[in-house]
């Protein structure tokens, strides 16, 4: 019965693994719901910001902010959002693959790259394969705070201000639904011109203290809110992907247990049959 005992131990260990993956699946499901709530909680600010920035772009301001001016692109800044932890299927791998394809296309055009990386997985990946990383932050947890991101974002904004980079992109996973996450490139700077929403008449705000200062703050807050939104969305994606991956793992474990059980039963029956035939032939010999 040695084989049967081995199989029993194996079944027990797979059952334990299944328990863990099931628990992780449920944790991911509840975390995903919370991340979705956070996504919708962050939306009003970004929407309001967008409205104000659109108003401002339409307003006849005498001052044109550098964030709104297109210039020739020699160097591109990329803020890449990844997850802190693994076990979330192909989420990060997909993002890296798409990002690298784009990076390579840019490099072929003679454009250089500066990277800012959010999340452990991205930091690990780019420290292995290289790349000019100018800023990074990790371990944001499930409920990221805007403060944690300020430094990384400001590096890019400053670089843009100083003319070190001429375009800034945000790369993250967009939450389409529970089953679908889409790796997305979003241009942050210069701000893509917004479509006219009927505000054609000429007016401008009263600025206090000065148009320049107010716009400076408004636009950098706007960019920050976009990045924050991207990070929150990426977390929702991470949890959704983990949920699916863990569900698949639990199902696989279930199948494995079934098969092992079958093998175990066969082994047990074979042993019983053998014992019986031994007894019978023993009795016949007497």
């Amino acid at each position, binding site marked *: 019965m040695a084989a049967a005992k081995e199989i029993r131990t194996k079944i027990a260990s797979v059952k334990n693994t299944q328990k863990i993956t099931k628990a992780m699946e449920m944790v991911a499901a509840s975390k995903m719901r919370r991340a979705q709530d956070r996504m919708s909680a962050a939306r009003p600010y970004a929407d309001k910001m967008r409205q104000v920035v659109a*108003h401002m772009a339409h307003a006849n301001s005498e001052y044109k902010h550098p964030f709104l001016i297109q210039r020739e692109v020699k160097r591109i800044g990329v803020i890449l959002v990844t997850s802190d932890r693994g076990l979330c299927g192909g989420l990060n*791998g997909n993002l890296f693959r798409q990002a690298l394809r784009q990076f390579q296309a840019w490099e072929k055009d003679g454009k250089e790259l500066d990277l800012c990386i959010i999340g452990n997985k991205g930091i690990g990946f780019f420290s292995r*394969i*290289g790349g000019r990383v100018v800023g990074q932050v990790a371990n944001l947890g499930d409920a990221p705070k805007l*403060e944690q991101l300020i430094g990384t974002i400001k590096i890019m904004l400053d670089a843009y201000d100083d003319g070190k980079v001429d375009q800034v992109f945000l790369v993250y996973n967009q939450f389409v639904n529970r089953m679908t996450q889409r790796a997305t490139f979003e241009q942050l700077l210069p701000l893509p011109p917004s479509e006219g929403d009927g505000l054609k008449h000429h007016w401008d705000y009263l600025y206090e*203290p000065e148009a320049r200062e*107010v716009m400076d703050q408004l636009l950098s807050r706007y960019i920050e809110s976009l990045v924050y939104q991207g990070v929150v969305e990426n977390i929702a994606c991470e949890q959704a992907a983990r949920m699916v991956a863990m569900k698949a793992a639990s199902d696989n474990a279930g*199948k494995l247990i079934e098969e092992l059980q079958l093998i175990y039963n066969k082994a047990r029956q074979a042993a019983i049959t053998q014992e019986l035939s031994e007894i019978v032939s023993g009795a016949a010999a007497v």
Partner: protein
Amino acid sequence: MAMTVHVDIVSAEREIFSGQAEMVFAPAVLGEVGIAPGHAPFLTKLGPGEVRLKLDDGREHAFYISGGMLEVQPRVVTVLSDTAERAEDLDEAAVIRAKEAAERAMADHTGAIEYAKARAELAETVAQLQTIQRLRRRGGR
């Protein structure tokens, strides 16, 4: 009924208030401002302090903010509140932290992306996933 204006107070992390008010007081950097319905378009920075709302039923609501922006349109007032204490030197410190983290990590490799290595690594993950799928199919029989 008194004239009212729609007020939204939002921060990057959540919505704080949304509703009608008769009057809005906010701590602008050049001194407190009071906004009544029908105010001209106005955009200002806010300092730390209290945003007070006089609601149409006479009650007053107060929110503490650590700074932000105030946007006024004739019918809508929007307070874009910061989530935390913001100051130039605090932001600078955050920049330095993020930079140092990157420099430490950059110390032992070059700036150029090694695409071949990246492809190899990604191929490895794909191969792992495919193996799992094959195993599953075989297991499923």
